[in-house]
């Protein structure tokens, strides 16, 4: 089963960023929840080559615009 270890940087927010394992592949344009806050994924980069079941990604996120 694939595991996505992701580094997250949030632009335009005081959020310090995060590292977390995800069981589903993240996609640009979808949202990601970090604790109580939710952010929009703007960009995804491969941070390191995959190893075993692990994929190493970097996500650049932004706060979800208020409707």
């Amino acid at each position, binding site marked *: 089963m694939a595991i996505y*270890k992701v580094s997250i940087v949030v632009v335009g927010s005081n*959020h310090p960023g995060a590292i*977390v394992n995800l069981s589903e592949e993240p996609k640009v344009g979808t949202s990601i929840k*970090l604790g109580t806050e939710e952010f929009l994924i703007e960009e995804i980069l491969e941070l390191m080559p995959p190893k075993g079941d692990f994929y190493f990604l970097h996500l650049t996120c932004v706060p979800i615009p208020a409707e």
Partner: protein
Amino acid sequence: MDLIQILSGVELFEGLSAEEITHIASLCQQKEFQDNQVVAAQGSPGLQLFIIQEGFVEVSVQRKGGSAGKVIVNLGIGQTVGEMSLIDQGLRSATVKAISSPTIVQVISQQDFEKLCEKDTHIGYVVMRNIATDLSFRLRQRHMVDLIG
């Protein structure tokens, strides 16, 4: 999800057999923290390795004599805290605090873990290799923070 499945999803143990992971599971003790509760304090001896099973922790560093610590990163499911002390035997370089309720962690005594790694050198080799990969990941993550954040 049982403990073996949880540990199988932790990068530190990637490449270990189910039997080897069972040995590691036998060293784990589950602990629950509430929001704002300190898991490990900067400057304290690094006697334990923590694996985040549920929730988030905040990692912050305080300058000597400084008041508020600077938050460096939040860590979520599958991340480990305290593995640096396995390598350098040093004091905790940062304070780790739960920022969600509940935050559930698996705790392994450094001494017990080291004993297991020395007794079973394949576990020792794989874990040390994975710690190196994790440090590389965190360094690359810091580069992205400096570049983008």
